[in-house]
């Protein structure tokens, strides 16, 4: 039984389409609404026990704008599958899969941090790499590579620091 047959058998009853990626790997696309159901089936019926990553692609200006990508590894069969689900650019959100693979919590946090995609049901969805309080999502297409006021949070912190201890650096600024 090939990987494709195993995946298709596991996804019986769930609408999906096989894609033809250029690297010849196995890649399927599903509706965003069936993500938890389909991925639970992949885990329980096709033995994809390991999540490799969760990330996203910004296809701006295409709509639906974001493609959320999952990669899974089966350690018993030594094969991999990729799953994609497209979601719209306006208030993008998708169901979390942290109840299936707890380790995806960090991947989903990073995806939220970089793309602003909200994972419904994630219990600790806050910024991972960028500082808390940052306003923008750096991997979105409209984000300039030099950033938007990259020093704002530091300057605000610096202002509070000066107000706390005005004797320090009194003639600076």
């Amino acid at each position, binding site marked *: 039984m090939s990987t494709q047959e195993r995946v298709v058998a596991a996804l019986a009853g769930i609408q999906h389409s096989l894609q033809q990626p250029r690297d010849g790997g196995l890649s399927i696309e599903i509706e965003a609404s069936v993500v938890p159901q389909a991925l639970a089936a992949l885990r329980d019926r096709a033995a994809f026990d390991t999540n490799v990553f969760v990330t996203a692609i910004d296809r701006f200006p295409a709509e639906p704008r974001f493609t959320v990508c999952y990669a899974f590894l089966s350690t018993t069969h030594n094969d991999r599958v990729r799953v994609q689900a497209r979601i719209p650019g306006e208030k993008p959100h998708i169901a979390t899969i942290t109840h299936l693979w707890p380790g995806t919590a960090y991947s989903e946090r990073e995806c939220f941090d970089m793309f602003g995609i909200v994972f419904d049901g994630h219990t600790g969805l806050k910024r991972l790499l*960028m*500082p808390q309080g940052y306003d923008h999502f*750096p991997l979105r297409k409209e984000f300039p590579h030099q*950033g*938007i006021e990259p*020093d704002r949070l*530091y300057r605000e912190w*610096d202002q509070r620091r000066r107000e706390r201890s005005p004797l320090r*650096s009194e003639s600076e600024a």
Partner: protein
Amino acid sequence: MGSLKPADGHASETGFFVTQVDWVVNWGRKNSLWPMPLGLSCCGIELMAMIGPKFDIARFGAEAARFSPRQCDLMVVAGTLTWKMAEAARLIYDQMPDPKWVIAMGVCSSSGGMYDSYSVVQGVDMILPVDLYVPGCPPRPDAVIDAILKLQKKIEREKPFQLLLEGDVVGEYDSGTKRFLRAPNHSVPTTRSHEVLPPTKPGGGHT
């Protein structure tokens, strides 16, 4: 500087010693720089090589690297400083006792380097005053040793006694470019200057 012995031999058996306060203070400062290694990326490796036996900055009295900023007077920013790390770097700088000097080691800390990016500070002079910039990616330890020698020359030119009387000059910050244009002339603590300075005008300040 000179050493004189009294001609009659009565005043003192040990002789005495004449020098300038500025000279001897600067001499002490420049030959016992204690680096605070702020190793943020690959420059930190070169910094370790510099402190190690092959390059051996003990030859210039700067080998006493301490990992507490409160024991250091030379901050070496070695590597890529991100905006998220900038708060920590500034806190470390503030915790160092005056007088203190800063070397921006490598192009990342000098200007952001190749990281023309939203997350990287485009030169640490955006957050603290820098005395010397060392180009290189990373610079060889020789280049940083050269910077330490240049810093020693700079310390030689400082006038600690005069500044003690006239008041201190801290780094100049330009709010337009959001950069520190000039490093401080160090004489006295800048953080608590009003407590340690004698009154500069008659009738002004405490008696």
